[in-house]
Structure formats: C-alpha cells, structure tokens
C-alpha cells in the first residue's frame, strides 16, 4: 500500500506540469490546427521526461543532491547563479499563470468574482502547504487531478480515427497544410517543452529527498516517474484528440480556458462539465503548488540553506518565505489582471531555452561513477540521455525565434 501511495508523487508531478494551463490550451490549439499530426512531440516529450525525472530522482537519492545543488557544483557559482535567477523568474511567471487559471475555473464553477475567490483559495492552498506533510500534499492534489481522466473519456466518446492517431505518433517533418511549417514547428517545440517544464523536475527530485527514498527504492523511482509521465502523456494525447475533433472541423482556434474545458464536457453532459472543471482546478492548483515549492527548493539548495516540509517553518525560514512569497506574487498578478495565457506562452518558451542549463549537469552527474557508484548510468541510459540533450538543445535554440516569427503561434 505504501509503495502504491508513493505513485502519487509521480502523479502529482506529471499532472501538475503535463496538464497545466499551458498544456491544456496549447495541446488543444495544436489539435485544432494540425489534427493528430502533432502527437509525436507528446510521445517524445513523455520519453524525455521519464529519462530526466528518473535520472534526477536517482541522483537525488544516491548523491543526496537535488538539482540546484548539482547545478552549482557543476556549472560554478556565477553560471549557476544566472541559471537560478532565470529559473526563479520563470517559476514565478508560471505560478502566476496557474493561479490566473485557477481564478478562471473558480469563476466558471461559481459565477462569483474569480479574483476574489482566487485570493481566498490561494490562502487556503498556502495554509495546506504549511500544515500538511509533503506526502499528504502530493496525495490530495495528485489524486484530485485524476478527475482530468474525463478528457480521456470524452476523447473516446468522440470516436476518433485510430489509424490517424497511430500515424500522428510517428514524426512528420512538415505541416502538410495551413497555417504552415513555422507554426507547426512552434507547436512541436512548445508541446515538447511544456512537457519538460523545469519546475516539475525540481519538485520531483526534492520530493524524493523529502520522502527519504533510499538507494533500495530506485526501482520505485523508475516506476513512479514512468507511471506518472505515461498517465500525463496519455491525458495530453486525449486533449489533442478533443481539440482535433471539437475544433478543427469548425475552424476554431481556442484561446479561452473555458472553451477548452467545455470541449472536454461536450459528449458527457453536466457531470462531465463539473468533472472537467474540478480536474482542471486540481491540476492548476497542483502546478501552482509545485512552482511555489520549487521556488523555495531552488534557492535553498543553491545556497545550502535548510529546506523541506519536514522542518518546521521557523527552522527553514527562507524556504517558507519563498514558497509563500511566490504564491503571493502570483495572486497579485491575478488581481492586477495580467492575462494568464500570455504568461504561459512566455514561461513555456523561455523554460525550453533554459532547460539545457539544468539538464546537462544532471546528465553529467548521473554518469559520474565517483558520485553515483554502482548506480551510475548504464550505457543505454547515457546514450538516451545524450540523444535527449541534443533534442533539448535544438528545441532550446529554436524556441524564441519561432515564438517571435509566429507571434506565439497565432494563425
């Protein structure tokens, strides 16, 4: 039972980042523009994130070093500090975007002011982070996010073309139609990078230490990472299918979270609508918690300060101030009326540009026998990790130019 419950770390990590605001809107837009043709970046992203999470989790467990401690050791203080600043900025941006999404869903659920509800809801979430043990945070928010399975049910109920889906899982180099290849590449890079959001890795590797995993738990590490990511990947495929079935034939390019939620509910009636809203709320909340906690983890690990949910707040003051402060800044952005979709686009694209800076140090550490001992990467792990590094570097180089040229993918 304990091992089964450990899966919730993988579920929360994956659902909170695979199925966050950016991914929900982004994948539905890709389905609305290209049908099933962009399913392959979802498959590729799922494999990449399994490799990355497994490696980061293994390094954290064996070397007792989470991501930003490794970044500092491998990149040096100055380079590491630059990565830290950029990462903190992105984390804050993403947290604000997720809370913006929370405000929208609360408004859709109740009809009351989303901003006011978001302030109260975030205070409640903050209290839950402060009061609950780490395991309970991941169990509550991870399991609540499972309501998103309603989108998979909707996708099945819409009777998609299974051959088309199978063809979409194989990479296509061109768009084969409007709005053209540049948009196609932008969405391919965007989907890939939205699946590899930085904060999910930082949350996961810190979570492995929070849960006190030992080297004997490494099989569990792989199972947790793989299960969570495959579930998140399957839901992302479902979102693309729903986008392709509900929007593509009508020429709709969805830009509203409320429209994407409605698409999930179309074939399922009122219960479907309520489940889609509840699942979206849980995933966005999970993502906001992950980003807020990642903000605390990053700085404390970089400067070797006390961190973690096991310590009472007064013994980890910087950690506590950072996660609480990140939530507070996010709520302020919501109240100020910043458009969450704009923030999401920026965070996904700039996140990809930053990704090699944290991925490479983890890959190097995982191949270092002096640090990892008998848990060092096997040849196959290093080969796969190397291939992914090349793909991440290509996506990182292409992300910002494609965003500018395509005006964030607007057709």
């Amino acid at each position, binding site marked *: 039972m304990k091992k089964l419950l450990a899966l919730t770390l993988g579920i929360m990590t994956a659902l909170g980042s695979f199925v966050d605001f950016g991914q929900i809107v982004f994948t539905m837009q890709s389905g609305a523009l290209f049908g099933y043709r962009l399913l392959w970046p979802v498959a590729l992203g799922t494999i990449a994130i399994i490799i990355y999470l497994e490696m980061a989790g293994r390094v954290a467990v064996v070397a007792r070093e989470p991501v930003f401690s490794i970044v500092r050791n491998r990149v040096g203080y100055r380079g590491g500090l630059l990565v830290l600043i950029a990462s903190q900025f992105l984390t804050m941006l993403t947290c604000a975007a997720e809370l913006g999404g929370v405000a929208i869903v609360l408004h859709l659920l109740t009809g009351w002011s989303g901003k006011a509800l978001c302030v109260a809801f975030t205070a409640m979430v903050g209290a839950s982070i402060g009061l609950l043990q780490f395991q309970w945070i991941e169990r509550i928010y991870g399991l609540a996010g499972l309501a998103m399975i309603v989108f998979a049910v909707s996708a099945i109920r819409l009777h998609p073309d299974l051959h088309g889906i199978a063809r979409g899982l194989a990479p296509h180099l061109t768009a084969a139609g409007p709005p053209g290849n540049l948009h196609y590449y932008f969405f391919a890079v965007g989907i890939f990078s939205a699946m590899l959001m930085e904060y999910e890795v930082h949350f996961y590797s810190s979570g492995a230490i929070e849960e006190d995993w030992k080297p004997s738990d490494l099989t569990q590490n792989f199972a947790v990472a793989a299960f969570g990511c495959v579930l998140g990947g399957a839901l992302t495929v479902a979102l693309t299918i729903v986008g392709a079935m509900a929007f593509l034939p*009508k020429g*709709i390019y969805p830009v509203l979270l409320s429209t994407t939620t409605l698409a999930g*509910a179309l074939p399922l*009636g009122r219960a479907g609508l309520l489940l889609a809203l509840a699942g979206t709320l849980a995933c966005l909340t999970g993502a906001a918690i992950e980003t807020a906690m990642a903000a605390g983890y990053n700085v404390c690990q970089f400067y070797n300060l006390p961190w973690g949910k096991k310590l009472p707040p007064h013994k980890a003051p910087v950690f506590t101030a950072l996660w609480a402060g990140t939530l507070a800044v996010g709520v302020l952005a919501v109240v100020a009326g910043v458009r969450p979709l704009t923030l999401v686009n920026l965070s996904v694209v700039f996140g990809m540009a930053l990704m090699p800076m944290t991925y490479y140090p983890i890959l190097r550490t995982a191949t270092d026998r002096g640090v990892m001992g008998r848990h060092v990467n096997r040849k196959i792990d290093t080969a796969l990790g190397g291939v992914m590094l090349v793909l991440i570097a290509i996506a990182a180089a292409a992300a910002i130019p494609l965003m500018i040229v395509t005006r964030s993918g607007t057709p």
Partner: protein
Amino acid sequence: MRGEISIAVTVLMLALAGCSHSNLDSTGISSQLRATSSLAMETGVFIDYLGTRHSTAAFARSHAEYLAQELEEQRRKLEGARAAPPLDRTLELCRREQEQLGSELRRLQSAIGHPEELPGIARKIRAIGDAAAAAREGL
C-alpha cells in the same frame, strides 16, 4: 550621451506610435479575420451546448462573459489600425463583423436562461463567422 538618449527616446516614440496606429498587411488582416470567425464559431458551439441544458447557470454566464472579453481584446487590437487600399475595405469589414458579434454576444448574455431566444442568436453568430471566413479566403 545626450544625443544617444534623444535617439533612444525618438525610437521609442516611433515604436509607440507604430503600436497605436499599426499598418496591417494582408497577413495581419487575415489573422484578425480568422480570430473573429473562430470566436463566432466558438460561440456557436457554446450555444449548441446551452441547448442541451447540460450547462450550469454559473458556467453559462461566466463563459459568455469570457467570450465577450475576448472579443473586446480583438477589437482593441484593431483600434487605430490602418491598411492600404484595397485592404482597407477588408479591414473595415472585419471591424463591422466584430461590431455585430459584440452586439450578438450582449444579446446572448441576457438570453441565458431563455432557451427560446438561442437559435436566433446562433444563426446570426454563425453568419458572422461565415462572413469573416469568406472575407479571409478572398484575401
């Protein structure tokens, strides 16, 4: 130093002027028409859903509000925009379609809870979407 500052300020002023009175080419107008047509079709899907009576009152009111806000955002983007002839006529048509969509969205917001009014609104909104799509194809 003073010269560099004045150049920077001039560039900034020109950029800002460009933002408030942008000159749209056919790609820009096509993109705006697509956004208008898409929003109209999105609204059509929503009205169909309202017809199934599966929506909650809160969702219906809030989603209608978001659709209206999105249209407002689109209209803001066209405020002060210009296009050279003959594109100026298409730009004007786009503004007109947005105007009509706005008035139908206002009708929709007050028609929530009155299902008998929905089919008429849906017809008009679909016609707006089709007109915007046809104008885009004509570019």
